[in-house]
């Protein structure tokens, strides 16, 4: 029996790093455009995994939670999602997760979804055993609210009797295992012991999990797996962009990891002290292929002069247009701008202007108050002196 294990489609997600649409600007501006392409990329990933399931002859596609970014996504998001699902040729099982729980506002019960949803799509919004094919059962542990007070998977396992002979059981759950995130305060953590026990005594044969955006396999039993998101959503994700093609029998699971995601969210730490460092950063940024599908987060450390700082700003501005986003992490950046003597000499000022420049210089230097405003004023002075009269 073969099926595709995926999760965390997060349809309708936007990323702030991709920028806002400037007010009163027509749609399709630079920044709005990146958001739109990112949204389209998520749908493309879904379509891609649909084709994959078809090519591999999977019996069904199991989506373990967070199909939508929220229960309150707009009708356009729902419509496009249904369009993407409409291209599938494989039955699809959708499990409500923490982003789209089966509560009163559940997106899967909204008329716009119900009307467009293809007939081979099943929403696992009732907990318990669902027979999806002869000899194949899926045990669903859907989220019923945003803040459950119990281990939903554990509850299902506790209520589960032994499987009838010849029946394969897949448990569909959403959430972190307690080993991955040992947080005692969170009541909804999935107890690993219970899961392992259920696998051991054959009540279930595979535990398909969602919520962790990276692909992950349990050390003790490789039948406990996170599929991860099919398209990256953030800089801190370890291994996103995959789906799992699972071949299952009552003893073992053969899993093939397939890549469908095309975007990248890169974090880059760089030290900037010299002009060479600047050039290296420039080169690193320039070397990237597919910049339009790449968001970069820079964490910069070091000390630069006014002139270098201006150069840095210029090169970042230049690259910013090519990439989907270039973000300089403010809270992690420890990049100090310290004016040096060359900066002051460049000004070539005399009289009172020279005195004023010296004062600002003193205020901006680390020996003084390391005054950001004074540094900015100095940079402005540079610019004004550079302006022809």
């Amino acid at each position, binding site marked *: 029996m073969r099926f595709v294990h995926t999760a965390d489609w997060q349809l309708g997600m936007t990323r702030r790093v991709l920028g806002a*649409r400037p007010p009163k600007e027509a749609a399709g501006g630079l920044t709005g455009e990146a958001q739109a392409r990112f949204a389209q990329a998520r749908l493309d990933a879904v379509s891609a995994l649909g084709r994959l399931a078809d090519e591999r002859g999977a019996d069904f596609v199991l989506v373990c939670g967070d199909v939508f970014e929220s229960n309150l996504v707009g009708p356009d998001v729902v419509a496009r999602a249904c369009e993407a699902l409409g291209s599938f040729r494989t039955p699809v099982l959708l499990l409500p997760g923490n982003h789209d729980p089966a509560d009163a*506002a559940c997106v899967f019960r909204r008329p716009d979804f119900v009307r467009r949803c293809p007939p081979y799509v099943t929403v696992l919004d009732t907990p318990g055993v669902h027979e999806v094919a002869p000899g194949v059962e899926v045990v669903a542990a859907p989220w019923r609210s945003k803040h459950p007070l119990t281990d939903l998977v554990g509850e299902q396992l506790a209520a589960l009797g032994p499987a009838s002979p010849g029946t394969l059981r897949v448990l569909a759950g959403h959430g972190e295992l307690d080993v991955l995130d040992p947080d005692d305060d969170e009541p909804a953590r999935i107890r690993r012991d219970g899961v392992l026990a259920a696998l051991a005594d054959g009540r279930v044969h595979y535990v398909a999990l969602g919520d962790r955006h990276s692909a992950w396999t349990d050390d003790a039993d490789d039948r406990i797996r996170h599929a991860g998101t099919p398209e990256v959503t953030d800089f801190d994700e370890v291994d996103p962009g995959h789906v799992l093609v699972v071949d299952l029998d009552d003893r073992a699971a053969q899993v093939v990891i397939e890549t469908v995601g095309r975007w990248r969210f890169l974090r880059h730490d760089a030290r900037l002290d010299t002009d060479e460092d600047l050039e290296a950063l420039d080169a690193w940024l320039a070397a990237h292929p597919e910049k339009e599908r790449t968001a970069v987060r820079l964490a910069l450390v070091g000390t630069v002069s006014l002139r270098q700082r201006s150069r840095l700003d210029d090169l970042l501005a230049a690259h910013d247009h090519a990439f989907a986003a270039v973000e300089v992490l403010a809270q992690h950046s420890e990049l100090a701008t310290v004016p040096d003597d060359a900066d002051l000499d460049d000004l*070539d000022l005399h*009289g*009172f202007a020279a005195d*004023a420049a010296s004062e600002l210089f003193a205020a901006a230097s680390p020996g003084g108050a390391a005054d950001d405003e004074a540094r900015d004023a100095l940079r*402005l*002075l540079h610019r004004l002196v550079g302006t022809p009269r």
Partner: protein
Amino acid sequence: MRLHRIRLRDFRGVHDREVTLAERGVTVLQGDNEVGKTSTVAALDLLFDAADSSRRLEIRQAQPAGVDAGPEVEAEVSTGPYRFVYRKRWLRRPRTELTVIAPAAEQLTGADAHARVSAILDETMDRVLWRGLRVEQHTAVGQADLGGQDALTRALDRAASGGTGGTAPRPDPSVDDGLVERAVEELRRYRTPSGRATGELRTAEVRLAAAETEYERCRAALEAVERDVAARDRLDADAAAVRTRRRAHAAEVAELEDRWAGLQSRLREVETARGRAVLARERADAARERREARDALVGAVDADAAVVTQATEALAAHADEHAAARDEREARRTADAAAREASTAARQQADEAARAVSAARDRAELADLAERLRRVEDATAGLQRAERVLAATTVDADDLADLEDLARDLMRAEAARDAAAARVELTAPEALTVEVDGETVMLAPGETRTLPVAGSRAVSLPGVLEVRVRPGLDEAGRDDAVRERARELAERCEDLGVADLEAARAARRGADDAARRAEEHRAALARELAGHGDAAALRAAHDAVRERLGETGPADLFSLAEPAPQADVSALRRASDAAREAGDAAARRADETAAACRAAEDAVRDADTRAAVLTERAADARHAHARRAEELRAAREAEADADLAAAEDERLVQAREAEREHESLAAALADDDPDTVEVRVVNARAVDERLAGEATRLEREHAETTGRLQAAGLEGWHDQHAAAATELESAVRDHDAVARRAAAAQRLHDTLARHRERVRRSYVAPFRAQVERLARIVFGSSLSLEIDEDLRITHRTLDGTTVAFAALSSGAQEQLGLCARLACAALVDPSDGVPVVIDDALGHTDPERLSRLGAVFTAATAADGAAQVIVLTCTPERYHGIGAATVVPLAPSRRPGERERDREAPPAGVDDTPARAPGTVVDLPRAPRAG
């Protein structure tokens, strides 16, 4: 800049003149008015500013009148490292030539030359200062605008920085002023002069505010949805709880309802007993009522008997009254008949008396009428007689008049004849008798008798004489006329049937008399017939009276008895009156008796009526009594009185028994407290209802919440919220960046401005020192000045008295202004310096101070490399005080033609070529230029 020489050709009044100036110190150009002093300065300005193609007003004015030559100016100038000769001609064959002598020889013409000179001057000379240090003619020497002058700023900068001696050429500090301006421009991009946000900063603030609002809106909407989701869960739980409670409550309700049903049936029993008791009591009451009715009936029968007795008595009492009334009526009727008879008799008597009076009156009237008739007949007879006379008369009034006329004509004719006839006078002295025409005429003595001779006359004395007198022919004619007339008269009389005129008159008189009598008779007739019309009517009246009197015989006026005397009539009338009164009295008495009779009749009728009523009553009473008695008898026959009383007692006993039974049952029920049970049942039902209501409400709220959630689902709040959050973050970042830039601009501007202020303040001191040094020469050593940062003199203090510059006298202002300019010239670096040009100033300065000012000029230009000072004046004595002055007298420069016309002797030494030394004027005669 230094001016070495200036040459003007055909410039205003100057034909051709070259002035060479002293290299340094004061040059005084002195000359009379219109000699061309001011033109020299104006020409320099034009040379430097105006291209040779220019046709500016100043240039057109510079062209001398009536000369076909363009104005031309040439100057030799050194400025900075350069020394050059520059020449320009305008209007006619315009031309520009530049010969640079140092540092490298250059030769340029046309626009290139102009551009090169402009470049050299811009590079080496402060043109604004060049204008600022000039004092124009006829203008007050006021404050020079020295603040911000580049050359002066450089000089003061040097002075302020302690005078480095100018070893290295310092860069131009005026760049810094431009820097401040640009800093202000930069700041204005973010903030208005009053400090309000504008431009980018304002846009960023607006965007941030809008983003915050939008984010808040979306967040609130999301929270509302979350609340609704939570509310739905809570509603589901509540609904379940309500269902549980309703189920639990249902059992309690059932138990209470059973108890309540049991009590209900017993309650019905009590109700039945009560009904029975009421019924028994009602029956007892009925028996009592029947007995009471029987008693009442017995009483009524007795009462009826009494009424019958009363009625009978009343009837008997009335019979006597009735009889008396009838007797009275009889008596009245008898009296009435007697009175009526007496009345009739009296009336007859009265009538007879009245008839007697009437007859007497008729007789009197008859007599009167008979008398009248008689008179009428008399009058009628008289009238007939008179009319007969009238008819007999033939002569009427006209005929008589004719006769009268004829008689008059006759008399006239006779008179005419007599007058014309001859007369015969007869006079007899003695009585004599004569016969005249046969008549004897006696003549008395002396009497004369005249005889007319109409026809032939014969006078004869009897016997004596016969005298015949015949008239002539005329007289005969007249006599014929008389006779004619007489004949006519006679004929007329005959016609009328009268003898003569007299007879006619008599006839006429008789006729008139008859007419008068006829009138009288007619009047009498009218009088007698008054009231009757005519005689026939009168007679008819007479006959009528006769008939009344009963005399049917033929009317005989005179056979009637004489009318009764008046006395008899009166007596008759009195008797008649008495009889009438007696009749009236009798009638009255008859009326009275009739009334009495009627009253008696009425009384009888009343009595009859009453008797009938009483009889009726008695009958009724008897009838009623009989009926009651019958009723009582029948009732007693049906049920005896004793039976009724017995029934009453029995029923009363039964009623009491039934009531006792009801009371005992009710007491038994009350012990079981049905009210409490009822209250509890009602309460249980209310609780049930309330729970049902609660369930309904929960259901409704559930539906509402679900509806809201469905609507919210289609709003896409998540997308909106995400967009708002992104926008907010972006707006915050944008605002931070702009705010940072604004703060930087503010900081830079403030820092620069602060330092510039400090520097400007430092410039004031050296400038003030220099101005004071010069001004003390004029005003004395106690002078001190206050000078602001724009290098303007604001106050002067002299002998401890401080006065604002504007309040100083014109002279003092002039002197201080001059000192400031000269100080400036003294301060400025020789390479930067420009000549100070003073065009006839110091008009307000007194001679004492003029001499002191001379010393000022000297002091200002004493330094090595000090600026040139050029003074233009027409009053040289003003500037005599200047020690080291080069004086250049200017003479008019005229064209040769003009000179010839003026027949002026050429000046001495005109052919000598003067040496070109400073302070000389070369005024060469030369041939007129071609063209």
